[in-house]
């Protein structure tokens, strides 16, 4: 694909597709993924929609929240795309769970509607949102499920739910392939970090124009480069875990696992990336992870903010090893908080407090430490 398109490139930045339509179908959703998308900055929606990312096609977005048109004028392109008559390439972005409409139909109704068709009396009846997904997916260049509801089922699919909600993958099945040969792409999160959405869309657009390789996806269709690591590995509090110190109540500054954080076993990048424009991130601010990017969310993480059983083993082990490590580090840090001059003077000239001079034991340890540090390399100032 990339090779054949490459022949069409002209000019410094190739543009095989100038425009790609994107249909946003919000089924059983809270609109949170739309809101997350609007908050993205890297790239932003206005970059995508105004075609200001060189090399990426301009996105003609059909989204109920941002559309200028309403009603049938808005729905008409959906109808064309569903029949394969749009005459332009398009992707389908699904937000929200897929409700079991057969269940609602038993009593003559629907759970989630978008647009309306006339019934036998000429009265409008809502069209189930999921039927758009089914029909449009056949002609789509890609189907991208956005958010935990669309990717895995999410909260509407939690235990006791009356709608039999499930995911887009559940609806379309494992044999589904878009016309580019892709299974459903899944960008989980409740709501996803906004840049995870826009970046993935941009990556696909750059791929379509031959600039970028096909983005890699894991065995559940997640953008592999975004969801490869656990959220704990990127957590600003992970160092506390390493040193065996833990928050005991909300507001404490240490690692949150003992007050209900599932971060060590959750694939997510929010601590690394921040929530908006590199600010925030759940555990960074002090909020335990409840696994909202994972297929098991919410039931497998409930009750929220109860200590996960797994931490009983792992955090206690880290308490033992961490205590040793922490003490050693504190000793090193004491040395590192001194200048060469202060060492020579035997005094720290701070007006903020009295800094004790190291005792003999600390001096010996430092001497031994530096021996090792400079064993096969010159100590600064050695000549």
């Amino acid at each position, binding site marked *: 694909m990339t090779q054949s398109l490459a022949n069409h490139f002209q000019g410094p930045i190739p543009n095989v597709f100038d425009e790609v339509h994107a249909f946003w179908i919000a089924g059983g959703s809270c609109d949170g993924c739309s809101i997350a998308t609007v908050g993205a900055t890297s790239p932003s929606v206005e970059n995508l929609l105004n075609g200001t990312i060189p090399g990426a096609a301009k996105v003609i977005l059909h989204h109920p929240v941002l559309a200028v048109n309403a009603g049938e004028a808005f729905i008409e392109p959906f109808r064309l795309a569903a029949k394969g008559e749009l005459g332009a390439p398009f992707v389908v972005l699904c937000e929200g769970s897929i409700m079991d409409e057969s269940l609602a139909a038993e009593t003559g109704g629907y759970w989630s509607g978008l647009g309306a068709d006339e019934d036998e009396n000429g009265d409008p009846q809502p069209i189930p949102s999921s039927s758009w997904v089914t029909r449009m997916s056949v002609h789509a260049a890609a189907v991208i499920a956005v958010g935990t509801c669309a990717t895995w089922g999410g909260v509407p699919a939690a235990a006791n739910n009356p709608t039999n909600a499930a995911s887009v993958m559940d609806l379309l099945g494992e044999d589904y392939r878009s016309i580019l040969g892709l299974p459903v792409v899944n960008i989980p999160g409740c709501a996803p970090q906004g840049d995870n959405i826009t970046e993935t869309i941009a990556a696909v657009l750059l791929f379509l124009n031959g600039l970028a390789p096909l983005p890699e996806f894991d065995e559940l269709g997640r953008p592999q480069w975004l969801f490869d690591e656990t959220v704990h590995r990127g957590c600003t509090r992970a160092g506390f875990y390493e040193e065996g110190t833990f928050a005991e109540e909300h507001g404490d500054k240490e690692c949150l696992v003992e007050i209900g954080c599932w971060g060590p076993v959750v694939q997510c990048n929010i601590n690394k990336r921040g929530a908006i424009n590199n600010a925030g991130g759940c555990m960074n601010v002090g909020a335990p992870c409840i696994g909202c990017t994972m297929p098991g969310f919410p039931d497998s993480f409930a009750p*929220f903010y109860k200590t996960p059983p797994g931490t009983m083993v792992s955090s206690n082990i880290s308490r033992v090893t961490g205590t040793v490590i922490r003490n050693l580090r504190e000793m090193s840090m004491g040395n590192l908080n001194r200048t060469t001059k202060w060492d020579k003077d035997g005094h720290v000239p701070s007006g903020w407090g009295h800094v004790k001079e190291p005792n003999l034991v600390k001096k010996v340890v430092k001497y031994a430490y530096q021996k090792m540090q400079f064993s096969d390399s010159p100590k600064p100032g050695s000549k």
Partner: protein
Amino acid sequence: MCFKNLPIAFDDEGNAYLKEGLKDPYEHKVVDLGEEQEVLKGLLERNGFIRNIDYDPVTRVAGALAFHSVVDLEKKKVLSTNSMATLFRGYEVILKGRDPRDAAYISSRACGVCGGVHATTAALAIEMALDIKPPPLGIVMRNILLAIEYLYDHPLHLFLLAGPDYSEELVRETNPELIDKAAETKAKNKDVHGYDTVLDIMKDLNPLKGKLYLEALSMTRVAREAYVLIGGKYPHPQSVVPGGLSVTVTASVLNEVYSRLIKFFDYSQKVTGIWDDVFDFFLESNPEYAKCGIRPATMMDTGVWDRPDHYDASFANCDKWGEARWSTPGVLVDGEVVTTKLTELNAGIEEFVEHSYYEKWDGHRFKEDANGMPLSPNHPWNKETIPKPGKQSWKDRYSWDTAPTWDRMPMEAGAYTRMYMTAKAQKAPASKFLENTGTSMKIKVPKHFLPEKTLEWKIPEHWNAFERNRARAYCIPYSAMVAMENWLLAMDLIKNGETKVSVPYEIPKKGTHIGFGAWGAGRGFLTHHLIVENGVIENYQIITPSTLNAAPRTPWGEMGPYEEAVLNTPILEKFDKPEDYKGIDILRAIRSFDPCMPCTTHIMAKDSDHMVTREVTTCACGVE
């Protein structure tokens, strides 16, 4: 004596009791909508200029909303309206049988636009039910968080959702006569926004390209950056817990929040100046615009932003801590304050499902509240959510939304209600920045690049689409100054070493515990009603602002606020042929409420058997 329709009376000491001698105290009239539909059907068949105007979906609103109207395009009059929420997910059903701790995070997912508000309201409901009192810094930080939420929410609505309806691009299509006029009209607030003429402003309101549209997008992100420093993420903050917040409040958090908050000082002046200029232009160009979306100022609000020295979460003291809020809870009937007490606000609420896809429930478990005030079988503590999807029929059932009422009256909700109530009631605390005069709210905005300025929002004579949006614009400085006031309080608390942001609590394994949370969403009124039975959620009911605003008819045939507002809207759009008609006036009326549908339909309402004495007009099909 705030209740006129519910059978609740008060003795000399102010204690409420159920009026005696009524066979069925909660009886109400039931009106058959079929007759109206027959009349309309006849009209539609006979007259080519009378048309069904359907919007499915109504766009530039959050969530799934459809709207049906019958419009006389010759007389330029709306004859009939129906508002439809077209999504059900069953959050209230999902919440049953769970650990109460899950309520904040599950119910947050009811709405992705204002999830933080749901989380907070759930936390408040749990705090009341389980007697949990957050520490002062927890309360103050919650206020800051939820004031900032509005700073993202209001610009989003004003410029991305409603704004395009007033942009040069759309107005040129629907009312080209206004374009030349706008070009000649000098903008009065040039000193704060820099635009010469109203047309210059309207050009920058154009979707996706206009500078004001793009600036609003970027300001929503500034607000969200400040938000996620406390909330962790947005939407669906991760730090709201019963008993406070799960946030480590460091000096850095407050410093970083402040550096973003101050950007809203100049922006407050700019946004209010922009919308004053645009709306004054429309209203002066054609006084008929004053009827767009008009309905009586009959509204209610929960109030928001608790005082750290008053809030104790208890039902016993909720009237006191409610009235101490920076925004006053209560009910307005036709612009007059009828109550500011949370207990009365609570007791007056009922939900009806006659025209919704739900089944009635049985039972009347809670006949009165803890103070002995009577509660209807239709009250949220007594209600149960039993979905029953059905065919859409204007005669029968047509929405997943229910019809909530207060004292048997459909109620409107909005950010603006928060300001209207507070300005009118004059009960909010003394403030460095806010002054309530009874007819207006004065908001002192500190200097940033622009000099300090006192903005004044005046209670308008007519309650219409333009005034809703204008008031929403003034809610930006209102919210910013409440955030500022609480930021100063947070600093004081930290100076005094009061750094706790939460209290630990236990879930009682035995007994019945009930509570309600009352907090304002971006669109106003929001309540969660909770029953915990032996440590497990027994019932959970959510009433959102759009549950109120998007409501279908009551059993006695009274229209919901969107329905009524659109019915009263004159058709001022210019078009040659009926086919060209776009419906901008109708859409302006609906969008002025800032519809937000995702969380509208998780409640379920109840059936009927009650009484209502007021006569209501449901339809203007008397014409012809």
